[in-house]
Each structure stands twice: as C-alpha cells, then as structure tokens.
C-alpha cells in the first residue's frame, strides 16, 4: 500500500494571469512529481496541489520567490488517510 507520509496539499490563490502562468510552469516540472487536484486556470479559481514530502520545500520556495499566496490545505495527507481508514473500519463494524 502506497503511503503519503509528509505529503502536503497546498491551496494556492492567484491574483492575476501572470501568477497563473507561473503555476502552469510549475505544473510542467515533472521531476517535482506534483499531483494537481485543481489545475491552474483562471485567477478566480484556487489551485490545489499535492506535493510529495521531499519536494515541499522546493515548491514553497518557488511560490514565495514569486510572491504567490498559498496556504496548507492538508498538513500531512497520511494522517487524513489514516482517519479515513479508521472511519471505514468503524462503519464496517457498525454494519455487522
């Protein structure tokens, strides 16, 4: 089972087309192994991206260097997944 310890999901808010273009550039950097849950499109829509643990600093540095606003949507993805699994097990017991 693949785990996601330390993976963060960032919510990025763009202010203009220029920042959207910067995120589209980020999207094209395959070595960062980013998983865009919401792709960069227009400034009106936030972008959500899952960042593997070992690339979190690089992505944050990229955003900060361009002054692009972001927040952490999910601090540690595995914690959320563990909670989900726990909920499922609880519900299965309830079924029985």
């Amino acid at each position, binding site marked *: 089972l693949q785990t996601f310890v330390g993976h963060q999901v960032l919510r990025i808010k763009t202010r203009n087309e220029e920042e959207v273009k910067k995120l589209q550039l980020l999207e094209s950097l395959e070595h960062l192994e980013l998983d865009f849950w919401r792709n960069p499109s227009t400034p009106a829509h936030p972008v959500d991206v899952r960042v593997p643990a070992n690339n979190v600093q690089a992505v944050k540095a990229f955003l900060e260097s361009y002054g692009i606003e972001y927040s952490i949507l999910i601090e540690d993805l595995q914690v959320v997944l563990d909670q989900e699994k726990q909920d499922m097990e609880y519900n*299965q017991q309830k079924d029985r």
Partner: protein
Amino acid sequence: SSNSFNFGAYHTLDEIYAELDHLASQYSNIVSKLQIGESYEKRPLYVLKFSTGGSNRPAIWLDAGIHSREWVTQASAIWIAKKIATDYGQDPSITSLLNKMDIFLLTVSNPDGYVFTHTTNRMWRKTRSKNKGSVCFGVDPNRNWDAGFGGPGASKNPCSDSYHGPSANSEVEVRSVVNFIKNHGNVRAFLTLHSYSQLLMYPYGYKCTEPADYAELDALGRAAASSIRSLYGTTFTVGSICTTIYQASGGSIDWSYDNGIKYSFAFELRDTGNYGFLLPASQIIPTAEETWLGLKKIMEHVRDSPY
C-alpha cells in the same frame, strides 16, 4: 443482512455491487441491474435501470466516479439510487418522471481504478490499462472520449494523470458507455458526477465557444445550483467547462452533447475547504442530499422539455 448497508460510509467495490443487487431485489418493480461491459481487468460494469415499463423510452444517463479516487461521488450515487427507488410512488415529481422516462445509473464508472484506490494507491485517478512502450499504467478516462480528442488540456505522456490514451475510446470503460448510449438511441440527458470544487458545467471543454443551447443550459444550470444551495447553502459556480475551469479535451459531456444529447452536465461536488476530495464520511449524505436536489431540477426540466 444486506439491509444494514450504511449509506453514510465508504465501501469496497464488492460491497457496492452487493448493494446494487439488494436494491434491484428490494425494488424489483422499478429497479433492475444490467451489465454494460467489463473493465480492463475484467470487472463488470453495472448500471441500475429505473423503469416503470415500456420499451426504448426516453432516458436519462447518470454516472459517477470516473476519477476513481473521488469516493464521495460513488457513495453519493448509491445514496441517490436508493432515493430514486424510495421516492417513486411517494414523490409526485419522481413518480411522473419515471412514468415517462427511464434512468440509467452507472455507480462506479472506473471499477479498476476504484479497487486500486482501496488496495494500493488512494491517489489513483486513471484506468489500469497497460500503456504499450511505457512503464506507466492507465489513462485519464475523462480525456479519452471522442470529443476534440488529444487537444488542449490533455497529456500525451502515459505517466501523466491526465494522459488521454492512444486513441479515442481506447479505454473499455469509456467504449462500453459509448456503445450502450449509441445502441439505446434515445438518451435525452447525460449527467456525470465528479468531485470536487462545487461546479456545475455544460459543454464545451475542448473548445471555448458557446454550445448552440447555451442560454437554456446556462439557465437550467443556474436553477439547479439554486436548488443545491437551498439545502445547506453550498454554492456552485455555473458555466461551460472552458470558461469555468480550463480548456480540457476528450471529456464525456462534450462527447454526449456533440452526439445529440442536449442536456449534458458535469457536477463537481462539494468542497468543505479542508479535505479536497477526501471528504470525511460524515459529509457523504449531506453531499448526496444537495446533489440530488440539483439533479432533480435538471431531470424535471428534461421530462418537461422533449426535443
């Protein structure tokens, strides 16, 4: 007892398929289960048919969870299936709808991906087909339809999460739906449930021009969004795929619209702002309830607006 199925929880594919059997058995007067094909890994693709009789009636197509990791869509579909079954004979609107039209509901559009999310990689969103000449598996099934195939917003890289596949309809999961709808020949609405970001979209995605029925689709989309909002205040943005999010080719509602199904809509379900598509199980029923109101608004319009 299968009566204990918990609609407010996430379930494995086997549990979901068992519940389809249960619904078909409990509501056998209007519900039946059909197999429309099988996935790449040979899992059956089941649709629930809601029908009060008659042959080749006009029909509404509804599918859920083409991107397998968005579990709340599959879960909502199961809840909605139960809702349709129980409302028939009780709710005059649903009763009149089913007295005139059939509903086909594909609860798990990408069963291989769904199983893979449960067993191996919770973040998986593609099919599980083998890509010739690549170490990467799978195709984004919502870039694989024959609608501007291979155009903007889809990747030609088999390792990408938005890989469009080697050719349109290369994925058996997509091809099975296409064949079913073409063979049926009388589908009047194509509704697809995705998650997340609270959007209600109509064509087009592969191009940024308005569809011929823009005014009607936009007004209907706004009415449906208003219905959704009426329950818990969840606000949906309404518009074409291209203007609402981004240009994306090979999507299902573009294919359905270009093949004569005027009422083609994609729902992106609720986003609480904390979990993305990993909504806590406690959010399933509220999501399904509000989504149902939006679906119902569209279905009523389809019922009352033959074309």
